[in-house]
């Protein structure tokens, strides 16, 4: 099936519309107060970019590039702090969508259909919500998704010296942003194992050495305070409760957290480590949003499983673009496993966001594989039914992301309302926070009273 308008152009337009509408939503959401306001105030106090960068050395977080970004945007904002941070957030979002679409092999109408399905998986996934629902004040996970997608892109591109340089710089930038930046190394190595030669072996050795150095420094020389609240079965446990229940080693808890994190990508459960559907079942009311999430993810995971099984049994020429498909599956497996391990301390869906993006990429290959194998009427009808059901559920989840943004806007607006008695004592900081508060309160948000009751039951919500 070939069509007149280039399929890649159609997908790019669709991606731009989704990203643009989410960008509009981001502009409606006031800045986050908790975890964010202190960082903005610190950026205001910091004498310069380098001072902000170096202030992170020796800290438990160690995110120097992220803190420097916060400072840079603050300085560039010239008083329009909300606009500066949200504009950067939108730019990152557009980069993520652009790289995602660039990684899809879109040549025919079938590819176009599979791409649209993959796009809705990318946005509708529970791992994506965290990329837009909060920014502290720059979302720290979205750059990692961008870096991982960029690494995959470099890996499959034609080799050149600048590709090697870009790969090294991507790894450095990712690791200085967040610990999950190591996923860039995982994506590069998995790509090489899959036969992609965009990044040379010499550059791979270089990024491997850098990764080892980073891990050694991060794990042995910098303080680690990794225990946050996390879900366990139907409960959400605070750090003290986790230590009390699982003892000093926490091995059982760590294993649970890694497996739960992997499961959250494949089946949309548990959420941040908590089986919310189980909890809802115990309470006697499972809202449709939970069925929608689980059914869409299970169906897609089954399609991916079938495609992976067929891929493992196929010969070199049996499947068109077999090498690309194999590489996508291999990178997904590696990023999924590595992201799961990176979540060992506590389960949080957004930590798995890079794996979620790779999941959407393999969903493209899985749907494409199903479509090109249709030969009989019976199979076609069954496949059409499965795809229309799964795609419909994912479409509801995509719209649900906007609902989450709308809900967040109300919550953040309220936080600013309650802030009046907690203004900083230092006059400059007080002026800054007062201005930010006035700006946040002036933004019209939607009170949930105006939202139909069914929306909270159908569209996904922020569980914690």
């Amino acid at each position, binding site marked *: 099936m070939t069509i007149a308008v280039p399929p890649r152009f159609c997908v790019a337009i669709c991606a731009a519309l989704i990203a643009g*509408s989410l960008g509009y*939503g981001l502009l409606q959401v006031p800045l986050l107060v908790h975890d964010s306001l202190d960082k903005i105030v610190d950026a205001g106090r910091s004498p310069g970019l380098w001072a902000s960068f170096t202030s992170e050395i020796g800290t438990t977080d160690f995110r120097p590039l992220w803190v420097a970004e916060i400072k840079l945007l603050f300085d560039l904002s010239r008083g329009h702090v909300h606009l500066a941070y949200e504009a950067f957030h939108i730019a990152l979002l557009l980069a993520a969508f652009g790289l995602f679409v660039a990684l899809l092999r879109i040549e025919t109408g079938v590819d176009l259909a599979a791409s649209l*399905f993959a796009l809705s998986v990318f946005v509708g996934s529970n791992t994506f919500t965290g990329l837009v629902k909060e920014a502290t004040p720059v979302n720290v996970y979205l750059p990692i998704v961008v870096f991982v997608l960029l690494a995959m892109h470099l890996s499959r591109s034609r080799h050149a010296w600048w590709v090697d340089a870009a790969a090294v710089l991507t790894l450095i930038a990712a690791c200085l942003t967040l610990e999950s930046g190591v996923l860039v190394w995982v994506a590069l190595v998995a790509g090489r194992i899959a036969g992609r030669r965009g990044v040379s072996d010499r550059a791979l050795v270089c990024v491997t050495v850098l990764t080892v150095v980073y891990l050694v420094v991060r794990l042995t020389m910098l303080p680690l305070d990794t225990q946050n609240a996390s879900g366990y079965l139907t409960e959400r446990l605070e750090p003290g409760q986790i230590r009390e229940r699982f003892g000093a080693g926490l091995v059982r808890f760590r294993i649970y957290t890694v497996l739960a994190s992997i499961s959250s990508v494949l089946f949309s459960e548990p959420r941040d480590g908590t089986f919310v559907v189980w909890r809802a079942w115990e309470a006697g009311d499972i809202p449709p949003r939970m069925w929608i999430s689980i059914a869409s993810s299970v169906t897609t995971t089954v399609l991916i499983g079938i495609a992976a099984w067929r891929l493992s049994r196929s010969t070199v020429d049996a499947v068109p673009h077999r090498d690309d498909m194999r590489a996508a599956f291999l990178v997904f497996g590696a990023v999924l496993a590595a992201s799961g391990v990176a979540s060992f301390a506590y389960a949080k869906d957004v930590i798995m966001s890079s794996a979620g993006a790779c999941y959407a990429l393999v969903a493209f290959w899985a749907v494409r594989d199903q479509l090109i194998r249709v030969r009989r009427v019976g199979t*076609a009808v069954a496949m*059409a039914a499965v795809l229309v059901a799964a795609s419909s559920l994912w*479409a509801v989840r*995509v719209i649900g992301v906007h609902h989450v943004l709308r809900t967040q806007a109300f919550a953040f607006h309220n936080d600013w*309302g309650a802030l009046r008695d907690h203004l900083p004592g230092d006059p400059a900081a007080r002026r800054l926070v007062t201005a930010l508060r006035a700006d946040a309160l002036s933004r019209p948000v939607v*009170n949930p009273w*105006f939202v139909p009751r069914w929306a909270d039951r159908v569209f996904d919500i922020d569980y914690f």
Partner: protein
Amino acid sequence: MADSHVLRLTNVSAVCAAIPALVAVGFCGAVLGAAVFGYTPTFWQGGPLTLAEAAALRDQGEVARLIEAGADPNAEYALRPDVLAVSRATPLEAAVLARRAEIVELLMHEGAAVDERTWHHLHCVAAEIGEDDVIDAIDAYRPATAATVSCPQ
């Protein structure tokens, strides 16, 4: 012949995979389109609230915004029929009736005042509702001159 048959089958399945996704894209396009042309997309439209309604609907941000824009926290405001069971109330009454202790706190910090008579009335409303944290929030602002509390049964 066989090839075109396979092609048709493939097309039908492809369309089934694409259409729901296109509906979601259409929704996003409508939101973005409205915004680009200067309208607030319906999805992002709420409505104006009176101060008492904002207090009843847990809208701390709107309570703070309205008061700082000049709304009187001690005046009586109209309420839409399905917000509370009363048609008019002061913001404090609305917060108590809606069992919102945090809104009581916010209103008091934003300039709401209670005299002996108002406090007695609010205390009795809170006691009738039976919400302990709301009673505590009201009692925290008990005027020094207030007499012993006796609420009508």
